[in-house]
């Protein structure tokens, strides 16, 4: 704590009150801390998943489960392909979101609109992929409480494989969905010129933070469910 007093004497007195110590307005600060708490929500899910896997003698091999793609025919054998496409979609939509935020800083309304539309399309595309994957797995007999896939050691499949898969990807999908809704709201507000009148596009920045967080969570979900 002594360091805080030390920094207070340095030229910009960030900690001495009357201003934000982080040079950010409170809304962004709250968004950051909200994302922190949400990280603990997802963290708890993934750690629970990890704990269950550590407690299990056998676990299905993801490459045997997730190896299909739309229009693959009867016996698809393309592990990781479809989910890589999904990952790529989300990364690209994150990039367009960054560009929208930057365009907002430069007060370029048309570029904000363009990039936001791309982001929304990316989000919807991701949701579409997820919907297809869920439908496909459901058709194979997988659902909450039902796991048709055998463990990699050949024993009866661990029930929590599908339980965790649907719960966690579902919870992530719910975040993507709310992110898309938020982005649509942002798009409408931009089109109505709300931010232009306000003189800044900070709202887009906060929506962006949320959207990137969704991308970040997917990085973890992708690794934990599909890769390892």
């Amino acid at each position, binding site marked *: 704590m002594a360091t805080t007093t030390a*920094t207070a004497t340095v030229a910009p007195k960030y900690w001495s009150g009357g201003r934000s110590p982080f040079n950010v307005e409170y809304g962004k600060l709250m968004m950051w801390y909200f994302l922190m708490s949400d990280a603990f929500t997802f963290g708890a899910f993934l750690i629970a998943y*990890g704990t269950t896997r550590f407690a299990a003698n056998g676990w299905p091999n993801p490459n045997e489960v997730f190896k299909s793609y739309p229009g693959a025919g009867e016996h698809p054998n393309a592990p990781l392909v479809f989910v890589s496409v999904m990952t790529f979609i989300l990364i690209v939509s994150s990039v367009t979101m*960054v560009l929208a935020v930057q365009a907002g800083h430069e007060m370029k309304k048309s570029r904000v609109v363009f990039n936001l539309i791309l982001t929304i399309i990316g989000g919807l595309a991701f949701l579409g992929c997820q919907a297809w994957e869920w439908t496909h797995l459901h058709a194979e007999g997988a659902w909450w409480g039902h796991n048709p896939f055998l463990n990699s050691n050949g024993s009866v499949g661990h029930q929590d494989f599908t339980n965790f898969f649907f719960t966690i990807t579902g919870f992530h999908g719910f975040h993507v969905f709310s992110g898309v809704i938020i982005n649509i709201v942002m798009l409408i507000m931009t089109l109505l010129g709300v931010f232009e009148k306000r003189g800044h596009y900070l709202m887009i920045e906060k929506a962006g933070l949320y959207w990137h967080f969704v991308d970040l969570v997917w990085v973890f979900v992708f690794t934990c469910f599909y*890769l390892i």
Partner: protein
Amino acid sequence: MEQHTAYSDVLHEDTHGGGTKEVIKVTIILSVLTIVEVFLGFWMIGMEENGFGKHFVKGVIIILMLAKAFYIVGYFMHLKHELKNLIMTIIVPCLLFVWFITAFLFDGNSFRTLRNKYNPVYKQMTTEKAPATEEKKDEKKPGQE
């Protein structure tokens, strides 16, 4: 809501990142990392279950995952260009995850060993091959033994 007045300077002092150039750079890095991950994933398919090789590759994938997380949080979420104070308030609480993960996984592992020790029926059921008749999709049986 008059209390916000003092902070109007915030808006003008915002430190910006490296612009579009940086975004392109980070996009390329993230794509490359993902491609490497997927490549490692493919490579892992043929490996022996629970062998050293597989665990090693999994470890590498986790490190790559953390690298991706760093780039997303640092550049896309702009954290790297924020003040150090803010960075610390985000990073330090995340350190709690270390013990959170360690303790949980350690206990999960212990649960498995205890169960295998005291419940031989459970051990048998979860390590023995499933009766083939039960599975309608018999051809989907995993490849590697």
